[in-house]
Structure formats: structure tokens, C-alpha cells
């Protein structure tokens, strides 16, 4: 198991480095620099500024400098939010995003897995058809449509829940978390159903049933764990989907999360901020893929072998 983690880390770190270097080079290729104002700067002022920010060095040197700074948690100054460093902005907004994303992942797993298992147990019956149709519809619904629609129905028409911003208590969390979890729960339901349906068709399950073991016991003892393997493998893509969804949801519900800063940064060409968020998102996704591998190994012992 330890070997598996090591091997994954071995590929994860180069991937992350490649993303950072690639994004960095892209940023430097962009037309226009941070000191291009309406009035051209005097050459010596510009030179002084560039020296201060390390922009007079060669590209490889700049990349090394940037990587070194990242290691110490310094993502540089924000070009738009002048009084803040990028690290401060991220530190403020990341907890909100993690809270919403984490709750949405939890909700999606609970709903998705129960719906998927139920559907597999009732395979071919109407409950299965209805649940799977619902799952397909949920996966197809984009968050930027469901978010505003939920806000319209529950916020403006029924006046049950706040539409925007962070109020007191936890009621402000409900709509964003639900909107964010819907597509993921649909995908998880499909995977859980496929996993369990595949398991139930296996010989050892049929054997257990023939011996008269209670269906619930068969499910708990034999079928459940391997059935969840496809769900675990979806964890990485789910993280990516939640992060992109969070960008929209935070914009729709006016929450000061990381995604919103990312969009603002992208619209304002705030390069250090965008670069920091891409780096952070990439590490989160890689982390979740790693986590998926761990859960994979826990669910399916064959995966723990080095040869697997």
C-alpha cells in the first residue's frame, strides 16, 4: 500500500510541476505587463520596478524563483486587490469554498450511493427506471442553470431561504450546497448502480443466495465493498466537477469563495491570482485522485499488490 502511494506521488509531483510551469509560461507570453499604464513609465522607473519584482531575470530563473516562493507559501502580490497578497486572498476565500465543496460532496455521496444501490436492487423495475432517468437528467443539468432556478424558486417565490451572501446560521449554505451537489450525485448514482449490478451478477453472490443467506447480509458482507469501487474511482473527476461548479455557484450566490476570486482575476487579468488558483485547484484534484487510489486499495485488496 505504501508503495502504491509512493508510486502515485512519483507521478503526481511532476504533473503538478508541469502545470505550474506551463501556466507560468502562458502568463508571461500574454501581451501587456503589470506596469503598462496609460502613461508610459520612465525607463529607469520601469527597470527599477522590474528588478524589484524579479522580472529582469531570464524565464527559467523567474520560474525557479516562483517555485521557491510557492514552497514558502508566497504567491506574490495581487495586481488588482492592491492591499492584499494573493496568499491572503486565498487564505480568506479557501475555507468557504472547502466548506461548500465538502458538504456538497458529502450530500452527493449519500444521495448518489443510496439511489444507485436501490436502483441496482430493483434492476429492471420502475423504481430503477425512474431513478436512472433522474440521474441522467441531474448529470445533464448545468449548475449555472440550477443555481439561479433554485434561488428563484426557494428564495424569491417561496421566500424560504436566503438568495445571496452569508447570513446568520447555516441557512445560506443550503441552496449553494444543493445546487452544487446535484450533478455529482447523478453521476455517483449511475456508478453505484453499475457497480452493484455488476457484483450481483457474480457467481459467488448467486451461490450465497442459493445457500439462503439473507439479501441484506449478502449486500453488506459481500457485494457492497466491490460495488463501490467505480464510485471511488470517480472521486478525482468529482473534485474537478465540484471545483468548476463552485466557481459558478459562488458567483450566483454572491459568496466570497476562491472560485469567485478566480473569475474576477480572470476578467481583470490578475495573473498572480489566477496562477495561484490554478495551482491550488490542480493540487486539490491530484490530491483527490490520490485519495481515490487509497480508497480503491481499501475497497479492493487486489489493488494493494505492487503488480496491480
Amino acid at each position: 500500500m505504501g508503495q502504491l502511494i509512493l508510486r502515485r506521488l512519483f507521478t503526481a509531483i511532476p504533473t503538478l510541476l508541469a502545470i505550474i510551469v506551463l501556466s507560468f509560461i502562458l502568463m508571461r507570453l500574454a501581451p501587456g505587463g503589470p506596469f503598462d499604464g496609460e502613461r508610459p513609465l520612465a525607463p529607469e522607473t520601469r527597470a527599477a520596478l522590474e528588478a524589484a519584482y524579479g522580472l529582469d531575470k531570464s524565464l527559467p530563473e523567474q520560474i525557479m524563483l516562483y517555485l521557491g516562493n510557492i514552497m514558502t507559501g508566497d504567491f506574490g502580490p495581487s495586481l488588482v486587490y492592491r492591499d492584499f497578497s494573493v496568499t491572503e486572498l486565498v487564505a480568506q476565500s479557501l475555507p468557504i469554498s472547502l466548506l461548500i465543496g465538502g458538504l456538497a460532496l458529502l450530500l452527493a455521496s449519500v444521495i448518489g450511493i443510496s439511489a444507485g444501490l436501490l436502483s441496482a436492487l430493483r434492476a429492471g423495475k420502475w423504481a430503477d427506471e425512474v431513478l436512472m432517468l433522474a440521474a441522467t437528467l441531474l448529470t445533464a443539468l448545468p449548475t449555472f442553470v440550477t443555481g439561479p432556478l433554485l434561488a428563484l424558486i426557494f428564495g424569491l417565490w417561496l421566500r424560504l431561504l436566503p438568495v445571496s451572501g452569508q447570513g446568520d446560521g447555516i441557512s445560506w449554505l443550503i441552496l449553494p450546497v444543493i445546487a452544487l451537489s446535484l450533478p455529482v450525485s447523478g453521476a455517483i448514482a449511475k456508478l453505484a448502480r453499475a457497480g452493484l449490478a455488476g457484483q450481483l451478477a457474480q457467481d459467488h453472490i448467486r451461490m450465497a443466495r442459493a445457500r439462503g443467506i439473507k439479501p441484506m447480509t449478502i449486500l453488506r458482507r459481500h457485494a457492497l465493498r466491490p460495488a463501490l469501487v467505480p464510485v471511488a474511482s470517480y472521486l478525482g473527476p468529482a473534485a474537478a466537477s465540484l471545483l468548476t461548479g463552485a466557481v459558478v455557484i459562488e458567483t450566483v450566490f454572491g459568496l466570497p469563495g476562491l472560485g469567485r476570486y478566480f473569475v474576477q482575476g480572470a476578467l481583470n487579468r490578475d495573473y498572480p491570482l489566477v496562477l495561484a488558483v490554478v495551482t491550488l485547484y490542480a493540487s486539490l484534484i491530484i490530491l483527490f485522485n490520490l485519495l481515490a487510489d487509497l480508497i480503491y486499495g481499501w475497497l479492493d485488496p487486489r489493488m494493494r499488490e505492487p503488480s496491480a
Partner: protein
Amino acid sequence: MRTPLIIVAFIVLLAMFGPMLLPWGHAQIDWDSVRAGLMSDGHILGTDDLGRDRLARLLVGTRITMSVALAAALVALVIGVIWGAVAGWVGGRTDEVMMRIVDGLYALPFMFIVILLMVVFGRSILLVFIGIGAVEWLTMARVVRGEVMALKSRPFVLAAEAAGTPGPRILLRHILPNIAPVAIAYLMLTVPQVVMVESFLSFLGLGVQEPLTSLGILVNEGAAEMDVNPAALILPGLVLVTVIICLTLAGERWRDRLTGTGRAARMAPDQ
């Protein structure tokens, strides 16, 4: 499979020819009736805050979203088929390296890389669809590679090889026609994916730019005024969702019919 396709065809036809029947352009301002209600002053769906006809904007937005999606899906089709066919045909080490690259790209936070491209190179419609197409080819490449591998050992291909037919010719004449149905099924599944990405970018203001419009922009504008005019949010949202769902259902059913290997196997993830 037929009903969803008919609905999509209807929407596409309406978006293509509808604007010609309207007296208003999608960016044309009717100064005399700004924020007109439904069915007033000759505006069937009324006008927005700038006095632009909502129906014209909806139809043109649908058209642009659909054209961007189709163009991007075709880009994805071309890259994916070439990549997958070469990997599957050549096999061995080349195949391993090419598929490793696909695996690696799968793990990247793509939406953010596309946004990064938009930030760096400016926001243009051309870049939107090249960017999306370059992102969405991965699944296509995997599927095509699998199909090519399976076909490679079939007698008719072996016969062609034994007859001394050059490799590229076998690929073009014997293999590509046989993977076309599967490729088209995945093309159909790529289109709704791309519709989502495009609308997502446009919703955030990073995709299609004014004076052009798209369903994503309309949903965004609608969300801003949903308290006074819910129809402005609901209509573009409904068109978007209908297109995505219909194409997904049609594509899934087509794919399932082609790869009829039991429902459980079909619903397993791509890996």
C-alpha cells in the same frame, strides 16, 4: 432515440431560420420600447433593459451556442480519431506513450486551463471552440483506440495486410468506416458536453462576447433580473437544458445499441 433528436432538430431549425422571420436583429435597439413586456409593440417576448428583442436574442443565442458546440465537437472528433487510430494501429511503445499522455491530461483541471488560455490570449469565439475542442477529445481518443485494436485482428484487415495494402490505406479504407458509427455516437455525446462548457464560460463572461450572444450569456442576464422577469432566466435555461438532455439521451442510447454488452458494463466509467 427518435423523439429527443426530433426535439433538437426542431430547436436547431428554429434557431437557424427563426431570426430571418423577425423584424428585429439580436443587437438592434428599439429605443421606443425599452423593457417592453410580453407581446407588446411587436416584441413577442418583450425587450431587455437595452431595448433588444428577447426572442431574437434567444434564437441567435441558441444558434451561436449550437454552432460553437458543433465546431468544437468536430475539432474534438478530428483530434480524437487521429490520436486514437494512430495509437491503436501502431501499438506497442507508441501506443503506451500516447495513452499515457491521454491519462495524464484527464487528470488536469481543464476548465481552468481553458480559462487561463482565455485570460492570456484574450477572449475570442475562435479560441473558445479551439480550446474546448482541444479539451474534449480525450474520451474520443480512448474509444477509437479500443475499436481500432479490436478491428486490427479481424480477418478482413489481416487479409488486406497480407495482400500488401499499405497501412494508411487500410486505416482509411477498412478501419475508419467501421469505427464511424461509434465515433458518431461519441460525437453526439461530446456536443452536449461542449454546449455546457461554452455556456459555462459565457455565463462567467469569459466566452462569447457582445454583441454576439449565447445561451450562457442569456442565462447570466436572466439571473440578474429574475426577481422582476423570471421568464428571462427560465426560457434560455429551458432551451439549454432541453438541448443537453436530448442530445445526451440520444447519444447514450445510440452508444448502448452499438456496444450491446449488458447494461452494467455499459454504465461503467470510461476507464
